[in-house]
């Protein structure tokens, strides 16, 4: 469990102090316009940038007091569009940062529809395939390094994991994330641009704007067309009664 007490960043890019708790088993989605500070917030949550005010606690212990190696057992990060240096084979790349059992690697490859690419070089994959490999690696780190005494599956931080995926793969991934969250009691924090994906799959949503979290809560509350239209400076059509009674947001032509 990750808790924030007035945690924020003062040096640019800034994050205004915010409180919150990220609980095991939930899928938290961070949304906001370009430059809102989503990636910065994610790097603060991962401890890569230390909070400059307030504090973050992971499992009750201040985040900055965790040794880097132990922290890696409890949280993993999949950054945005990072090209791996050199020509790794897919299954080798999955094992970087951990020493996973073969069965775990195979299961994760299967989860993200990558089994047929296991022996391919990562640089020869398409953008979407590579993105799924990196996500599988993050999950692999948590699942193989997680200590047996831990009560939950740790925290997986994902920066725009669907940016290069087609709609079929988006659905498969979002379902898989929900699956991991439920099965391993993993907390998953996910930056998304697609508000309808957020609305369909998120347990909770944080809405960020200019470094400030201006709203948080259930997707149906946070993603209301009036707020969204204002913050994104976009003209929207609101389609009531979308699938499962969840609201859909569409751009006006």
């Amino acid at each position: 469990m990750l808790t924030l007490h007035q945690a924020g960043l003062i040096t640019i890019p800034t994050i205004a102090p915010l409180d919150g708790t990220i609980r095991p088993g939930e899928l938290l989605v961070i949304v906001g316009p370009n430059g809102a500070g989503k990636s910065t917030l994610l790097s603060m949550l991962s401890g890569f940038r230390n909070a400059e005010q307030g504090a973050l606690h992971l499992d009750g212990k201040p985040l900055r007091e965790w040794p880097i190696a132990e922290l890696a057992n409890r949280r993993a990060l999949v950054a945005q569009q990072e090209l791996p240096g050199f020509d790794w084979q897919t299954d080798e790349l999955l094992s970087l940062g951990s020493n996973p059992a073969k069965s775990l690697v195979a299961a994760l490859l299967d989860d993200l529809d990558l089994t047929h690419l296991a022996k391919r070089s990562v640089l020869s994959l398409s953008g979407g395939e590579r993105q799924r490999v990196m996500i599988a690696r993050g999950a692999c780190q948590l699942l193989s390094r997680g200590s047996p005494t831990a009560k939950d599956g740790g925290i997986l931080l994902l920066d725009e994991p669907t940016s290069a995926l087609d709609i079929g793969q988006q659905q498969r991934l979002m379902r898989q994330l929900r699956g991991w969250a439920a099965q391993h009691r993993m907390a998953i924090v996910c930056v998304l641009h697609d508000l309808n994906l957020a609305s369909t799959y998120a347990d909770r949503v944080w809405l960020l704007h200019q470094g400030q979290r201006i709203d948080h809560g259930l997707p149906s509350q946070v993603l209301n067309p009036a707020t969204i239209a204002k913050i994104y400076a976009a003209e929207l059509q609101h389609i009531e009664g979308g699938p499962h009674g969840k609201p859909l947001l569409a751009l006006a032509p």
Partner: protein
Amino acid sequence: MIAILNTDRFRVRLPVSRTTRVLVGLTATLLLALAWAAASGALGISPWEVLRGQADPLSIQVWWQLRLPRLLLGVAVGAMLAGSGAAMQGLFRNPLADPTLLGLASGAGLFVALWIVLFQDSGASSLYGQFAAGFLGALCVCLIVFGIAKRQGGGSAAVMTLLLAGLAINTLAGAGGGVLAFIASDEQLRQLSLWGMGTLTNALWRTTALALVLIAAALWLLMRSARELDLLQLGEATAHAAGLDASRLKRRVVVATSLGVGLCVALTGVIGFLGLLVPHCLRLWLGPGHRLLLPASMLGGALLLVVADTLARTVAAPAEIPVGLLTSLLGGPYFLYLLMRRNRAC
């Protein structure tokens, strides 16, 4: 019918890991090359007779005092240059990083030349002074290059900037060397040109023994970084989240590389392209994992330099070709061949 047969089934499976097989194979090849090198030279000496004390006194003297230290120095310098190339490429996540291209070697060279011109008369301490100067020169360049790389962040622009920075440093060091040659006395000039040719000619026990110890320490530091270099390939933020202390890794690799390359340059002058060529070829063969790539590069570098140096001193015997020239001639075409083969496979 034949097409149905699975060829994998007929491949012999040895009960040892690929890492062990590759490293044992490379070590055996290196030992063979050393045996050949020990028996080759302007003077026909059989190492077997020398070791049994049956050779004539001159042969024994030449073999123990000239040939053996030279072989050992070749092993150490080759391993260091190729190993530091592999580590630098891992650190910059860029296959073009190399002690010569980034200007480390020429920076070390400039400092050593400075030392020779300014303090050459201080006698016995000059050797250690030369070592220290080489280390400092390489360290300075390392820090400059890192400063530039940090300011640039990642991406392809950074690669270009790194290479241009290396070019600038090489040019500067060249100009500095020219100025030094201009103001040097005749005796210093002779010493500068002897040292600057990039050969293993100056191998003596006094220098070689110390170099072996220090280079072994630097190589050990690099070997300890192998797993962390693997992690770094994920990108700095992701690697941090996967348990990597990147600044500690950088410090360690920079110190080891500067120490090693500085020493090599102080002893042998600039022997170029070993650090680029050996890890690059081996990576195409073995993949990018540093736990195998680093030791394999060290063995491969030692092998290449021992073979090249033996050719350099025998092909035109009793005259000698600068070995730096030969390493480029030997390695370049092979490198091109591998590149072409790889492109076809993709």
